[in-house]
């Protein structure tokens, strides 16, 4: 099934014969390259340090008022070799994209190009203070300006707010701009409509902005129920928040019709752009009637996920919402120089709703994302979307004969394929399949999201995987699914070969232990 390379060689998958390969127990608890590592606080010492600094002169005069620290902080240190080994050993208990296939749906775990890392570390970007005089940071302002230009062109939108620090922060930015725009007209609308398949941040964001959240039902084919949505529109609806492509992996083909209806009712259209990577370079959301959309630079434009952040969530805005964008923003003067519009630029800031963060946004992510865009160009970004969608459809069609694919009949999927646990037997669940895939050497897909599908499994291959990798995954995924269909009891105990077996989350939550004691 694997595509041979030109030499004719192809990777073989050799099934393990006797399962566990359990040898004798080791004295250390280690198993060769699988190394156990204690906590920092169990190996560090309070008098050890890995940096060379002058010793504290207890007699030196201080100007600390009466606030000099008398109590120990309770920290411990390690020398450099010990530090490097401690964290290197910890790193080896992690799965990352560099290590293998990571089809985590809606998270877009694509390759992180190393040029981006190199560029972000240029001293001209990394070693620049956010409050440096603006004549000393023209290059940094230019990066923000150029990246904003790419985002506007790619989305077909006229404006962008760059400061939001992550996707959810960007979502908040968009909804606050919508609230500000309504309030500027004295229009006190109260309701935001959110499809039931939406990511949990959507209702949380709308609720934060003091909106009442109402669900919009989905059709059996996995899209927004347009008739139900239209019926609910009215003078109390401030906005609808729609993810497109949606969390079922489908394109909302009636998006334009929805947007027109929302606009006719005086509302705004918020598009959750978490899945923009499926259509980047192929479709401009601005052509679909979007008023605001955040873009997760860490998804579509491949800034690293870093084990859970930092992200970056610029928001593109329509003409109607642009005046309400948060401070600061970058403008260019006629002489080509750049400047920041901040609180003091009273005329230019206009009705901006305020400030969302101390400085100018995630500069370190901007340099990486701009590097990524320049590398791909208009042609490469289009290919990114096409290959991501091709890979996902290939997985969908290669699995649907054995795994329940609730929306396989709804047309092609976009960048991710959605499955459900309908046919599993013997009490086996989606979770068991996920843990079985861990033993096969894969990071599992997203599980139990979206909530509209029972035992959901959301598989997002991304465009940076080869056909051979995907073929090998399909073989392994099918094998694990077959076990779930057959009710294989052993799968309930998986994973067997990971650094840890299943962890007791109930005990962790009942008696939270959130810091080292001792």
């Amino acid at each position, binding site marked *: 099934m694997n595509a041979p390379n030109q030499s004719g060689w192809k990777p073989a998958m050799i099934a393990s014969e006797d399962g566990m390969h359990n040898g004798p127990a080791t004295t250390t608890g280690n198993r060769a390259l699988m190394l156990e590592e204690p906590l920092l606080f169990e190996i560090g010492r309070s008098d050890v340090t890995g940096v060379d600094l002058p010793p504290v002169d207890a007699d030196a005069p201080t100007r600390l008022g009466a606030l000099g620290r008398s109590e120990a902080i309770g920290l411990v240190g390690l020398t450099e070799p010990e530090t490097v080994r401690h964290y290197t050993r910890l790193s080896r208990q992690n799965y990352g994209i560099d290590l293998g296939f990571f089809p985590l749906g809606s998270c877009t775990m694509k390759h992180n190009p190393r040029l981006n890392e190199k560029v972000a570390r240029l001293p001209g970007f990394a070693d620049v203070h956010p409050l440096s005089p603006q004549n000393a940071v023209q290059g940094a302002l230019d990066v923000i300006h150029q990246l904003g230009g790419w985002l506007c062109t790619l989305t077909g939108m006229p404006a962008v707010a760059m400061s939001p620090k992550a996707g959810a922060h960007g979502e908040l930015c968009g909804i606050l701009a919508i609230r500000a725009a309504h309030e500027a007209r004295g229009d006190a609308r109260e309701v935001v409509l959110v499809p039931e398949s939406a990511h949990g941040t959507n209702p949380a964001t709308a609720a934060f902005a003091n909106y009442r959240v109402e669900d919009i039902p989905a059709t059996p084919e996995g899209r927004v129920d347009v008739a139900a949505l239209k019926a609910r529109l009215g003078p109390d609806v401030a906005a609808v928040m729609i993810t497109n492509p949606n969390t079922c992996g489908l394109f909302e083909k009636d998006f334009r019709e929805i947007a027109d209806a929302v606009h006719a009712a005086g509302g705004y259209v918020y598009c959750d752009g978490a899945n923009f990577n499926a259509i980047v370079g192929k479709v401009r959301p601005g052509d679909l009637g979007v008023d605001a959309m955040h873009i997760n630079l860490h998804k579509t434009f491949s800034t690293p996920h870093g084990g859970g952040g930092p992200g970056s969530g610029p928001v593109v805005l329509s003409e109607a919402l642009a005046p309400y964008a948060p401070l600061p923003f970058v403008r260019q003067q006629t002489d080509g120089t750049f400047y920041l519009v901040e609180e003091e630029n009273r005329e230019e800031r206009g009705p901006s709703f305020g400030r969302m963060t101390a400085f100018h946004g995630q500069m370190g992510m901007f340099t990486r994302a701009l590097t990524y865009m320049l590398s791909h160009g208009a042609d490469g970004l289009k290919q990114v979307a096409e290959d991501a969608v091709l890979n996902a459809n290939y997985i969908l069609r290669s699995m649907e004969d054995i795994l329940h694919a609730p929306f396989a009949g709804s047309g092609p999927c976009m960048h991710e394929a959605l499955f459900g646990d309908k046919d599993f037997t013997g009490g086996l669940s989606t979770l068991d399949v996920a843990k079985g895939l861990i033993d096969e050497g894969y990071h599992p897909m997203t599980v139990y999201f979206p909530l509209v599908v029972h035992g959901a499994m959301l598989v997002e291959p991304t465009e940076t995987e080869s056909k051979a990798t995907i073929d090998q995954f399909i073989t392994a995924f099918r094998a694990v699914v077959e076990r779930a269909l057959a009710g294989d009891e052993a799968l309930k105990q998986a994973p067997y070969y990971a650094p840890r077996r299943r962890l007791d*989350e109930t005990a962790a*939550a*009942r008696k939270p232990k959130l810091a080292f004691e001792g």
Partner: protein
Amino acid sequence: MTRYFTDEHEWIDVDGDVATVGITDYAQSQLGDIVFVELPAVGTSVEKGKDAAVVESVKAASDVYAPITGEVTEVNPALEEDPALVNSAPEGDGWFFKMTIGDSGQLEGLMDAAAYKDFVASL
């Protein structure tokens, strides 16, 4: 003492002018391992059908509704230390709170044990 049940799977014991509220065995079996119970403050006025407490498992948080209107007079201190009581003794030591009975007429709309048993069987 009389015990009534709601269709949201709460039970309520009435003893004179004080009622004790908890969730049913069926409810705890659906929720799985309970890790935390958020109880109302003593003195809170609760309203029939409105949320009065929250019960949490690892992956879910569920509202518990007041079966009748009244004021909270006491909460179960044992649940703070040992939320697992809701799993092991939902209709006994795992009670949530005690309350006054604002309108005893509201009790009449609730189910008795037999009716609740039939109700659960029908789900």
